[in-house]
């Protein structure tokens, strides 16, 4: 019963409200009609205006094409106005947005050995340099922003979003663009221009990982927070000199805990290059880097088999010889091309080494320490048909001489020669995507051979980047 009452009252209410709606509608309808009328008028006016502009534009462009007719081009004024008016530039705050690009990278990695045991025998471990996580993972995603700042500066910011959800500033620098005479100063954080591969980002490498010399001597890549000045000689042969000063905190340097003023490190480099003929081009260089690591710590297994913390303060110098040679038949790299490159690294360290610096073994001892080590890699990449490339790389490190001085009782130098062999095969459907398979055999420690398979993708979104030579 109550249900029935409810229903009927609802019905009644509904009926009651209908005329109200109708009444409201009459008034509103008129209003809406007026609005539509208004809209219509305003659109008609706009369409008319657009029509007029279109006609004007057509007339202009007809006139412009007529300015260069087959009949009377001789009458062309020397400084003819552009035949087309440039497209309207969009207004608003977004009009000056910098060029934005994003690089997405990821991999599937199959390793025969536990990546936690990764180490290069006889070389100071330099941080995160292993082949990476087993199985599926994403590598660093890169976000890039670049634009002219004003009439004097160009700015570039590259952020790396790491797979463990951190943001790192890869590069953040300004370039002073207004200096004549081939001088280009750069300041901020940048990848140093020493060697060949150092200032190229990971997505531009021809292999999944950096050459062994980069991993052993730079912990990946050498970055500087500081100033770089490059000078390009006014010659037809490419001849470029560069000098850098900076905080020198990137390995083999270290963060300076005593907070001294001044310069933590510097670099000099010279590169020369050119074309042999239309098909062959090359570039070669020499670089020298000097750093003052202070209390740089790492852990090493000592003669007694104990993990001991070591602390080095002194001077590190790295010299690099690099070359790259590229061949493309008749200069056309689209169909086939070949790229050969190699770099040789020498590293010299001299300073004080503090054994058991944290006192965990109760044997703390400081002694003079010198080391001279070297290494090299050579690689070749051949594009055998459009979109497809194969490559091979050989890496080798020479443990050289390490003199532990007064710490020789605790520490022993390695005589093992770490080596690595890599084969690469990649597919590049467009300039914006690449898929790669890499197989690699690493012999970085005695009796420790790691066979690694990498399957990698690199996707680039946004602004069309230009790759350096």
């Amino acid at each position, binding site marked *: 019963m109550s249900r029935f009452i409810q229903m009927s009252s609802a019905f009644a209410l509904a009926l009651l409200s209908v005329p109200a709606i109708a009444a409201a509608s009459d008034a509103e309808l008129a209003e809406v009609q007026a609005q539509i009328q208004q809209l219509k008028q305003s659109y008609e006016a706009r369409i008319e205006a657009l029509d007029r502009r279109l006609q004007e534009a057509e007339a202009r462009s007809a006139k412009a094409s007529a300015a*260069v007719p087959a009949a009377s*081009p001789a009458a062309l004024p020397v400084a003819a106005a552009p035949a*087309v008016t440039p497209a309207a530039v969009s207004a608003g705050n977004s009009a000056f947005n910098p060029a934005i690009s994003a690089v997405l990278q990821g991999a599937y990695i199959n390793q025969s050995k536990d990546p936690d045991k990764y180490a290069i025998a006889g070389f100071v471990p330099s941080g995160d340099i292993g082949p990476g996580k087993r199985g599926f993972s994403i590598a660093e995603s890169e976000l890039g922003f670049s634009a002219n700042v004003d009439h004097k500066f160009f700015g570039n910011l590259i952020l790396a979003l790491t797979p463990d959800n951190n943001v790192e500033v890869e590069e953040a620098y300004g370039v002073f663009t207004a200096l004549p005479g081939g*001088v280009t100063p750069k300041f901020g954080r940048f990848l140093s221009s020493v060697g060949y591969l150092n200032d190229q980002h990971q997505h531009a490498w021809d292999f999944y990982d950096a050459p062994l010399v980069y991993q052993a001597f730079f912990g990946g890549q050498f970055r500087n927070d500081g100033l770089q000045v490059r000078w390009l000689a006014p010659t037809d042969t490419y001849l470029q000199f560069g000098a850098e000063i900076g905080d020198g905190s990137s390995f083999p340097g270290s963060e300076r805990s005593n907070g001294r003023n001044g310069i933590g490190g510097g670099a000099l480099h010279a590169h020369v290059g*050119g074309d042999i003929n239309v098909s062959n081009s090359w570039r070669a260089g020499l670089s020298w880097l*000097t750093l003052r690591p202070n209390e740089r710590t790492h852990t090493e297994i000592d003669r007694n088999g104990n993990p001991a913390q070591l602390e080095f303060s002194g001077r590190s110098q790295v010299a690099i010889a690099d070359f790259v040679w590229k061949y493309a038949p008749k*200069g056309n790299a*689209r169909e086939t091309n070949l790229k050969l490159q190699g770099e040789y690294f020498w590293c010299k360290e001299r300073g004080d080494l503090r054994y058991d610096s944290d006192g965990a073994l109760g044997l703390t001892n400081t002694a003079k320490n010198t080391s001279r080590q070297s290494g090299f890699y050579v690689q070749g990449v051949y594009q055998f048909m459009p979109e497809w490339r194969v490559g091979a790389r050989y890496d080798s490190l020479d443990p050289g001489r390490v003199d532990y001085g007064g710490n020789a009782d605790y520490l022993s130098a390695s005589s093992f020669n770490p080596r690595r062999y890599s084969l690469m095969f990649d597919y590049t459907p467009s300039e914006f995507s690449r898929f790669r398979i890499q197989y690699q055999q690493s012999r970085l420690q005695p009796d420790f051979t790691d066979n690694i398979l990498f399957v990698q993708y690199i996707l680039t979104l946004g602004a069309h980047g230009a790759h350096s030579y």
Partner: protein
Amino acid sequence: MKRYVRSFLGLGLTLLALPALAALNVFASVPEWAALAEELGGDQVKVYAATNALQDPHHVEAKPSLIARARNADLVIATGAELEVGWLPLVLRQAGNPRVQPGQPGYLEATAFVSMLEKPLRLDRADGDVHPAGNPHIQLDPRNIARVAAPLAARLADLDPANAAYYQARHKAFSERWSKAVAQWEKQAASLRATAIVVHHNAFAYLNAWLGLQQVAALEPKPGIDPTTQHLSAVLALLQRQPARMVVRAAYQSDRASQWIAERAKIPPVVLPFTVGGDDSARDLFGLFDDTIQRLQKGSQ
């Protein structure tokens, strides 16, 4: 360290003092603008072509030699419309030469002076190598050459006022020769009007517009994407319904795809020089068009 920096700077300053060369150094991104600069500048300019006709202009590298030449250039002439986007910005940034940066009098983009064709209605990389400003291969319409010649001559005069009259006179002479030649080419090519063609890359839009050629299909499924067998089969099927007289490609392009179509559709493959230096006859801009029309006529017979 300080010592090294000082000696390094010293060396730099010594070399800076080297005398500048008398002639205007012109850096042209592609051979057609190099040829045009030579026509207009005569012996007052020293022209360097960054690429040759057998190079795919979309796939050029920022080679050390290019950076060195841009360093000494007084004028950089590029096509624009993002044709050189993959290498020229980098070359200019590394050259340390503020006179030839975009926006400066020493930088000229040819596409700023012509009406662009095939401006895409939607911008999406899924559509291949699209150029937001329109198809950048403007050089195969000789009227575009004339449109670029005027501002280029004016620019040469601006940069080298002492020889302004010389550039003006050369431009006048070139324009007269050019307009006669264009009239001649148009007469020769009248029979080509409405000829149906297939192209390898969508690089002939301006030639088609000028001569009234009708492009039936492109062998690339999308601009800049290499021909696939699937797409070639589709083109072949289309040609059964809508026959074409020839399949046209530029000198720098691989012959595989056009041979494949040519054999099956029984139409001749035609290689066009595309730009100056594309073949032995296309030694200058006049030769480029003489040869282009001859080859098209031969193909249509």
